[in-house]
């Protein structure tokens, strides 16, 4: 069960300063972070990913394993997709849901860095979503996808949300997560 609380978190990096931000996220909820470029959406996700320490405020209720897609590339470029699947499975000590991975079955023997950006993202999304983790941070995760893949990923996220997974997402595209969002947090 996820009961994540961010209380007045803020961070300063050079000229940029994220004003204090508070929100809570529970299992089965999806929070959409909105705001223009440079408003601090990725910084918020990085703080939740433990990559960035907030200068002020605190974050509680983070699970041990978090699924992150889009913040940084997360798979080994020089490895095959099947090797990456094994690597992520054994590092997370979870087993992938074969049904979700069926969409990338034909790519198993290809090197990850030989795939197009769109297919790389599809592999990352399928792989991390198939681990069925309690919390996902998705940073513009659907941006490089074509319409069909976006709809398919959205349907999977919706299904997982209803089965109790928590999501914190960012997207500049209207309609990606608008109807799925439990709350919208706007950064100025």
């Amino acid at each position, binding site marked *: 069960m996820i009961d994540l609380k961010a209380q007045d978190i803020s961070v300063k990096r050079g000229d940029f300063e994220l004003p204090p931000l508070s929100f809570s996220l529970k299992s089965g909820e999806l929070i959409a972070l909105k705001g223009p470029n440079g408003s601090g959406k990725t910084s918020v996700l990085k703080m939740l990913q433990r*990559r960035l320490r907030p200068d002020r405020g605190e974050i509680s209720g983070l699970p041990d394993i978090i699924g992150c897609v889009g913040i940084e590339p997360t798979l080994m470029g020089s490895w095959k997709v099947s090797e990456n699947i094994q690597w992520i499975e054994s*590092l997370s000590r979870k087993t992938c849901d074969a049904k979700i991975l069926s969409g990338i079955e034909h790519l198993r023997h290809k090197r990850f860095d030989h795939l197009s950006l769109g297919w790389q993202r599809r592999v990352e999304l399928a792989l991390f979503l198939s681990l069925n983790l309690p919390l996902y941070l998705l940073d513009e995760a659907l941006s490089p996808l074509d319409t069909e893949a976006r709809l398919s990923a959205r349907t999977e996220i919706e299904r997982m949300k209803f089965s109790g997974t928590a999501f914190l997402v960012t997207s500049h595209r209207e309609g990606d997560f608008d109807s799925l969002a439990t709350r919208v947090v706007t950064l100025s």
Partner: protein
Amino acid sequence: MRTLLQKDIRNARFILWPALWLGVPLLLILQFSIDRFSFESIPWKTAYWITFFFSSTALFYRSFAQEHRFQNFSLYLAFKTPRWQILLSQMLVHIGVLFLLSLFYLLLILVFWSPRELPWVHLLMVSIFVSCALAPFGTLLGLMLQIEREFLFSIFFMPLSTPLVLAAYGLSEAWSWNWMSLVLSFLVIGSFLSFFLFEFFFDELI
């Protein structure tokens, strides 16, 4: 831990080849460097240890460069992978790759210097012993200097490892307690510093 070790072994080819590309030409240059008065080439033991230490700079720098390139640090944070496991796995693979390098360089020594006798077992044992002392210290420095250029690594690494080069040369002549204690001190201090400072520099890097 096994997962990290498998990953590092699989990625070892990315550090073994650059180290060899750095070491083999150096070894050949040293072989062709002849003293113009005595017409003798550089002693093979000197050439072996200079090459061994110099090529290890590519090894230590590049293993964390691989991790950095694939953003593995983000994954370790998201999956809360214990830092000591990352360090230990890297150190063990470094020792293994250093052993392979020493084996390869000794073969080249045999071909190009043709020494009257080459105490293989003794030299390989000294190489493993020295590798164990070098690995914690080199692994930590490899992580620390990841944000800098690769050539800077040698500038920091070579002066710091000079006592170890001397000890390695001394031990390849014969086992001596003085040199062994120097290598052991490197091992103990290097391990201690690595385990205590690794987390700090890991957080700094991300």
